[in-house]
């Protein structure tokens, strides 16, 4: 397989921050606009896939270790469940931050308005933790599938015509 040209690599490096920022935007605005943790995480992970395609899996695997991604994924999932467990003063998943004037604690104004970031209670926090999990999970998935191709074939791994 040919190495991708310099143009591809340069453009990928330029575009990558924009994709990341857009993905993060989708994640943190999940409680106001269409989007959320999974969608934003998928966009951000697609940036990593772009790098993977442009630079090749071996190059990326040096920078991003699968074990680190796994830890990141666990942290995302753990913070999500912790947020749900923190609501146990009332019920599991109870939105204890809504209307508390703490972070994200404002009551959204009634009627048509441009949207206030500082609302939603635990929802934005959960979006962020899901986003973290999806970024790590999808990147690890694509990275693993890309690295699979480089593995040595098994005993009977003879290609048939």
């Amino acid at each position, binding site marked *: 397989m040919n190495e991708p040209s310099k143009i591809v690599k340069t453009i990928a490096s330029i575009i990558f921050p924009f994709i990341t920022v857009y993905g993060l935007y989708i994640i943190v605005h999940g409680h106001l606009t269409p989007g959320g943790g999974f969608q934003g995480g998928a966009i951000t992970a697609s940036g990593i896939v772009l790098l993977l395609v442009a630079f090749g899996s071996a190059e990326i695997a040096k920078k991003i270790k699968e074990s680190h991604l796994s830890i990141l994924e*666990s942290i995302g999932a753990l913070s999500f469940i912790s947020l749900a*467990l923190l609501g146990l003063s009332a*019920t599991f998943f109870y939105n204890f931050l809504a209307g508390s004037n703490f972070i994200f604690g404002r009551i959204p104004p009634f009627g048509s308005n441009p949207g206030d970031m500082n609302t939603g209670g635990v929802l934005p926090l959960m979006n962020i933790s899901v986003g973290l999990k999806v970024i790590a999970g999808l990147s690890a998935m694509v990275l693993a599938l890309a690295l699979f191709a480089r593995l040595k074939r098994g005993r009977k791994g003879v290609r048939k015509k």
Partner: protein
Amino acid sequence: MNMSYVLLHAPALLIAIPLFAAFLTPIIDRFSKRVRNIFVLAVLIIEEILMIIFAWDVFTNGIHVYTMGAPNPTSTVPLQSAVPVRIVLEVDGMSAFMGLISTTVSLAAGFYSIAFVRKETGQGKFYTLLLLMLVGMLGMEFTGDMFNLFVFFEILSIASAALVAYRSYYGDAVEGAFKYLIISSIAGSIVLFAIAILYGQYGVLNIAALAKAMKSTTLDMIALVLLISAFAMKCGSVPMHFWIPDSYTVAPASITAMLVVASQASLYALFRICFSLYGNTSYVATSGAILILFGLLSMFIGVTMAIPQKDIKRLMSYHAISQTGYMLLGVGAGLYLLGNPDFSTHGMAAMEGGIFHIFNHALYKGLLFLTAGAIFYKTKTRNLNEIRGLAHSMKFTTIFFLIGAFSIAGLPPFNGFASKLLIYESVYHVNPILSIIAMLVSILTLASFMKVFHSAFMGPPMKDVERGDVPKSMLFGMMVLTAGIILFSIIPGWVVGHIVHPAAQSLANQSAYIRAVMGD
């Protein structure tokens, strides 16, 4: 901590604790393998204890409902709305019964795995997925919501498929996992399609609300057919059983024991749909007859296919199909008679037999799969032609195997006999042929297990096998299940009266299930 507080939140806690622990495991795994093992076992023990306390409360005090995200767990229907809009967990006797099975077998499988997978790589992921399987099972059993049934079903399928392929250096392990996953995802899509049909008509997803609104339209019937066939496939009923031997055979032994319970979670979903969702429609007798038919086919074809097998786990997988047939037969006969005047005399006993058999099956089939794993651990083969004389060195395993084999064959005084007796005597009133086939299958079961016992444990000892039994943690895992079998064998009357009867009662009593969520 206050006990009533724990009991109030128990449905959510039982699902949340293993979920939390599942994602904590890979982090602990980076620091110490030993601490990780202790942590996983501690979580499984806590689950078991919490489940026993909670199940006892459900059996004595009736249905628990839990509304996620509501200011109060019991406020299922919000003030402004006429239907439940939040995620509702609804734990009645049957759910608690299934939860007990899941936690018990998970505990045994957890102990067993410690030694069984010691030499493998990626153990952190193994325990994560094991705990996720427990989450999936408990979620399927506790949910009061069709959509969450689907979500937990898929969590269970993905975690199990990944675990079936755990020893991916064997080609057939990946093949079995692939088949399992294809079957599961097709079943999942079909279930979602059926749920969409129901949602399109009634605009709710809660099982109780759906059951209340059910109008027996043609679309309801199509949804019922799709749900029955999808869940019947996932619980391994003939003629959709082909994936069961393929995937059970290649999974690690402790996971096979878990897969048995995972299939029973699908069986639970099948019963829940037939009884609680469609219990008030005109399809009850037809679906009961279909369950009986599935049961008969599974019993007979499962056991006859088991006899010629040479692979020990494959033989046992066919028995798993055959024993699932007993449950389908017993509960199907109950469903067939539901609403008849006969129900209180024979139908209830048939359901008790079928439901009691679920627990017995989880115990003895789990135990048998674990002994098969112990044989594989010692001899590195599953082929019955190549092993013999293991009783010389593996004394405890032999005893455990015999107890499991006698129990599955329904020999008195073991628990398998008690549940089969209830089934024989009650389905006789539906049709005598059903009882006759059930007894014949029981005899053939004994025959095929004597084949295993003779070829694996009897005869002169094998030469190239080191002496001594398997490691202690594996023996302990098997002992947990054996203790369960012996306990259930000694006090079948108490178990049926205090555990099985509430489960059967709650399954048959649809109006109580609806009332718990919808109010009066």
